[in-house]
C-alpha cells in the first residue's frame, strides 16, 4: 500500500484546482474570489510541506516518485514564489483585464506540474510534469489575447517548446532503448559507458531542459516571450520554470548519468559560458525592461549552470543557492515594474524610469539595490550568489570558467548601471501613482530587505542548502 501522506501537498493542490474550476464555472463574477482562494491554497500546500519532516527520503509508486530534501526544498521555493507572484500581480491583472477565472487556476496547475517535475525519479513522470507546466504556460503567455504581442509570444513559445519537448522525448526514448528502463535508479545501474546511444540521449535531454531555462543557444524564445506576455506572466516565466528545470537538471545529471560525467560536463560548461557571455552582451542594447531582464536571466542561468558543471555536491549546492537568491532578485525587480503605473497604464521601457529618484525615492532605492545586486556588487545578496558559484568552480580548478564568468559580470554591470544612470542621473518625468495594493508592497519590501541585509547573517540559507547531498 502506498503511503499517500507523503504527497498530500500535491493532492491538495490538485483538488484545489478542480474545486476552484467548479466554483468558477457555477458562480458568476468569481474571479476575484478564485484569485484569493488560489493564494490560500498555495499557503495550504506550503503549510503541508513544512509540516512534514524535511529529511524524509522515500520513493513512491515503484520508485518513480521521490520525496527527499532536494525536492522538498525546491517545492518550498516553488510555492513561495508562486505565492509572491500572485500577491504582487493581483492589481496588475485587474487593470489590464486578464483577471479571468482561468488565470490563477492555470498558474496553480503549472505549479503542480513543476512540483511533479522536482520529485520525479522516472523519465515518464518527469515528462508528464514538464508537459503539465508547459501547457499551462502556453496559455498564460497568450492570456492577454487582445494584444498582438501577447498572442505572438504564446504561439512562439508553444511552437518552440513543442519542438524542444519532442527532442527531449526522443532523448528519453533513446535512453530507454539503451538502458532498458525509464527509472533513474535502474538507468544508473544499467548504464554503459561506451554506448553512443546513451550519449545522444543525454544530449537531447540537456537540449530540452536548456530550452526551459533559456540557456544559450536555446534562448531564442525568451526575449520575445518575456516582452510579449503580460508582466504578471513574465515574472512567472522568469522564476518558476527555472527552479523546476534546474532541479530536474540536477536529478538527471547527477543520479543516472553521474558515472559518465566526462561526457556531459563539457556540454554544461559550454552552455554556461555561452549563456553568461551572451546574456551580458546582448542585453546592452535593449530598451525594454522586460526584454532586458530576459537577457539578464539568460546570463544568470549561465552562472547557475556553472555551478552545476562542477560535478560536486558543493557545485549543486551553489547552484541551488544561486537560484534561491535569483528568485528574490527577480521578484523585487518585477515588483518595481508593477509600481510603474500611471492612469491605468503600465510602463516598461528604460526611459520611463528617467529621474525616478526625485519623485519616488524609496522605489528607486529598491531598484538601485536590486540592480546592483543583479550585477553582483558586494555586500548585496547577488554577490554572495556569484561568490558561492565561483567557490565551487574554483575548487575544481576550472579557472577558465571562473574568469570568463567574472569578466562577463563586468560586462553585465554596464547595462545594470545604465538603468541606474537613467533613474538617478537623468531629468525627471511625470510622477507615477503611489497607491499600490498591500501584497505588492509586502513582496517588494520583503525581497528588498532580504537583498540588502542578507550579508549580516548569511549562515542560515547556507546551512539549509548544505544538507542537500545528491552524490
Amino acid at each position, binding site marked *: 500500500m502506498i503511503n499517500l501522506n507523503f504527497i498530500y501537498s500535491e493532492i491538495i493542490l490538485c483538488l484545489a484546482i478542480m474545486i476552484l474550476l467548479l466554483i468558477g464555472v457555477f458562480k458568476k463574477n468569481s474571479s476575484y474570489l478564485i484569485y484569493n482562494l488560489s493564494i490560500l491554497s498555495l499557503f495550504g500546500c506550503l503549510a503541508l510541506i513544512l509540516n512534514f519532516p524535511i529529511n524524509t527520503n522515500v520513493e513512491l509508486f515503484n520508485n518513480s516518485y521521490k520525496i527527499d530534501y532536494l525536492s522538498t526544498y525546491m517545492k518550498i521555493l516553488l510555492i513561495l514564489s508562486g505565492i509572491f507572484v500572485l500577491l504582487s500581480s493581483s492589481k496588475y491583472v485587474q487593470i489590464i483585464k486578464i483577471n479571468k477565472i482561468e488565470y490563477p487556476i492555470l498558474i496553480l496547475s503549472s505549479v503542480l506540474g513543476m512540483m511533479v517535475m522536482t520529485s520525479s525519479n522516472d523519465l515518464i513522470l518527469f515528462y508528464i510534469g514538464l508537459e503539465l507546466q508547459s501547457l499551462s504556460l502556453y496559455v498564460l503567455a497568450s492570456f492577454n489575447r487582445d494584444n498582438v504581442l501577447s498572442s505572438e509570444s504564446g504561439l512562439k513559445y508553444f511552437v518552440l517548446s513543442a519542438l524542444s519537448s519532442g527532442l527531449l522525448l526522443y532523448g528519453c526514448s533513446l535512453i530507454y532503448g539503451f538502458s532498458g528502463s525509464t527509472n533513474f535508479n535502474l538507468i544508473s545501474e544499467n548504464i554503459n559507458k561506451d554506448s553512443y546511444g546513451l550519449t545522444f540521449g543525454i544530449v537531447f535531454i540537456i537540449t530540452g531542459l536548456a530550452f526551459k531555462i533559456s540557456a544559450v543557444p536555446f534562448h531564442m524564445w525568451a526575449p520575445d516571450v518575456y516582452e510579449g506576455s503580460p508582466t504578471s506572466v513574465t515574472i512567472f516565466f522568469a522564476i518558476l520554470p527555472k527552479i523546476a528545470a534546474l532541479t530536474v537538471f540536477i536529478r538527471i545529471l547527477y543520479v543516472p548519468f553521474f558515472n559518465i560525467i566526462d561526457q556531459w560536463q563539457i556540454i554544461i560548461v559550454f552552455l554556461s559560458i555561452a549563456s553568461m557571455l551572451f546574456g551580458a552582451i546582448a542585453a546592452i542594447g535593449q530598451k525594454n525592461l522586460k526584454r532586458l531582464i530576459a537577457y539578464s536571466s539568460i546570463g544568470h542561468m549561465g552562472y547557475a549552470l556553472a555551478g552545476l558543471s562542477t560535478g560536486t555536491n558543493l557545485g549543486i549546492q551553489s547552484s541551488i543557492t544561486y537560484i534561491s537568491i535569483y528568485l528574490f532578485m527577480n521578484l523585487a525587480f518585477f515588483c518595481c515594474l508593477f509600481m510603474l503605473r500611471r492612469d491605468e497604464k503600465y510602463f516598461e521601457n528604460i526611459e520611463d524610469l528617467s529621474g525616478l529618484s526625485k519623485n519616488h525615492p524609496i522605489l528607486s532605492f529598491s531598484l538601485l539595490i536590486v540592480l546592483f545586486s543583479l550585477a553582483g556588487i558586494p555586500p548585496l545578496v547577488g554577490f554572495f550568489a556569484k561568490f558561492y558559484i565561483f*567557490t565551487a568552480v574554483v575548487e575544481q580548478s576550472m579557472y577558465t570558467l571562473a*574568469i570568463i564568468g567574472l569578466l562577463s559580470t563586468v560586462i553585465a554591470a554596464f547595462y545594470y548601471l545604465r538603468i541606474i544612470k537613467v533613474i538617478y542621473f537623468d531629468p525627471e518625468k511625470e510622477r507615477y501613482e503611489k497607491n499600490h495594493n498591500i501584497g505588492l508592497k509586502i513582496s517588494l519590501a520583503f525581497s528588498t530587505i532580504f537583498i540588502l541585509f542578507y550579508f549580516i*547573517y548569511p549562515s542560515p540559507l547556507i546551512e539549509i542548502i548544505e544538507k542537500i547531498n545528491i552524490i
Partner: protein
Amino acid sequence: MDFPILSSLILLPLIGALFIFFSKSKSNTYLTIKYLALFVSFANFILSLYLWYLFDPSTAEFQFLEERSWIKGFINYKVGIDGISILFIILTAFITPLCIVSVNSTVKYRLKDFLVAILVMESLMIGVFCSLDLVIFYLFFEGGLIPMFLIIGIWGGERRVYSAFKFFLYTLLGSVLMLVAIISIYWFTGSTDIIYLYDFGIDEKYQYLLWLAFFSSFAVKTPMWPVHTWLPDAHVEAPTAGSVLLAAILLKMAGYGFIRFSVGLFPVASEYFIPLIYILSLIAIIYTSLVALMQEDMKKLIAYSSVAHMGFVTLGIFTFTQQGLEGSIFQMISHGLVSAALFLSVGVIYERMHTRLIDNYGGLVSVMPKYSIVLMVFTLGAVGLPGTSGFIGEFLILIGAFKKSFLVAAIASIGVILSAAYMLWLYKRVVFGEIKKDEIKKISDLNKAEIFILSVLVLPIIFFGFYPEPLLNTTEISIENLIEMYNTNINSNLVKK
C-alpha cells in the same frame, strides 16, 4: 577588550546614514540632517582618536581583535588593526567630517542622499582598513563602488555619466580577478583569515599568479600607469567632497592593500615582481608629472599629481626597507591631507568663478590674500618642501630607494623636481600675475567655514612636517615585523632552491 571599538567605528556612520535616509526631506530640515551627519562623523573621529590613544605601538601583533562566526565553517567576520592600518582609519575619520562641512557650498541639491552616500562610504572605508579576512576585505573594498558611483554620477559635472561608468567598470574589472584569487587561496590553504595566512604562508608556486590577480585590482585602484586614466576623469567630474574622498582615502586602499596583501601574503612573488613595480612607478612619476605640467584644468592637474605621488608610494613599498615602507605610509597620509586640501581649495574658487580652467584665473593674491596663503602651504606640501609633511614621506622613500638601487632613486628624484615645477607653476598662474578678468575683482575672500576647513588641514600638514614622530612611532614596529617576515620568507625560499 570588551567594547567592540572597531565594529563601532564601522557601524556608527551606517546608523547615522540610516537615520538620515529615513528622515523627512523638507527644506527646513536640511540643516538638521547636515548637523546630524556632522555629529556622527565627528563622533567617529573622536572614537578613532581614542583608538589611537589605546593603541599600543610597541607590538606588531594585531590589536582590538574581534571575531564572529559569519558564514559557518567558512568565513569569520574578523577585524583588527596594527600599526599599518590604524593611521588610515584615523585619516578616514578625519577627512569625512571635513567633506561634510564642505558640502555647504558645493552640493546644491539632494543633500540628504549625498550625506547618506558619504557616511556609507566612510564606514566601508574604515571596514577596508580593519578587516582581517580576505572575503570581508573584498566586501568592503568593492562595496565602496556603489556610493562613489552615485556621488560622481548624481552630483558631478558635465561628463559625470562617462566618468562614473569609467570609474565603476575599471575598478570592477580589476577586482574580479582578485576575487578569483581570494577563492583560490581559500582552496589552497583552507582559510581566508589573514593572520592564519601570515603564519601559514602560501605555497611559492601559486604566489606569482595570485600576486598578479591582486595586483590587477590594486593597480587600478592606486592607480598605476597605464590604468590610471579613470582617475583624472573621475576627479574632474566629481563634486569637491567626492574628489576629496577619492584622493584622500580611496586611493590609499590600494596602497594599504599592497602592503597588507601583496607583500604580506606573497613575499616571494613580490620580490620577483619588483622590476615591474619599479618600472611602472617610475613611469607614473615621470610621465604623469609631465602630463600634469600640460594640464589646463586645475582638478585634472592635481589628479595627475596624485598618480605621480602614488607612484612614489608603490616605489617605497617595494623597496622593502624600513625607510621605504614607513615613507610610503607617511606619504599616503600626507598625500591624503594635501590632496584633500588642494581639492577643497580648488572647490573654493570654483564656487566663485564656476570654472576650473587655469587660464581664467590670475592675480588672486590681491583679492583673496587669506586664500593665497593657505594655498601656498598646500602647494608646498605637494611639492614636498622641508617643513611640510610631504617632504618626510618623499625623503624616506628616496632613502629606501637609494638603498635598493641608485638608478631608480635617481630617476625618482627627477619626479620631485617635476612636482615642484607643475605645482609652483600652477600657483603662479592662479595666484600671481595681473588680474585678467573683471569677475575676479569682485570675488570675496574665504568665509568662516572655509577658513575653518582649510586651517584644520594646514595644521597637520605643517605639524607632521616638523614633528613626524607620532606617525612614524605608530608604524615602526609593525613595519619592522613585516620586513622581518618578508626576509625570512625570501631566505627560506632561497634555501629551498
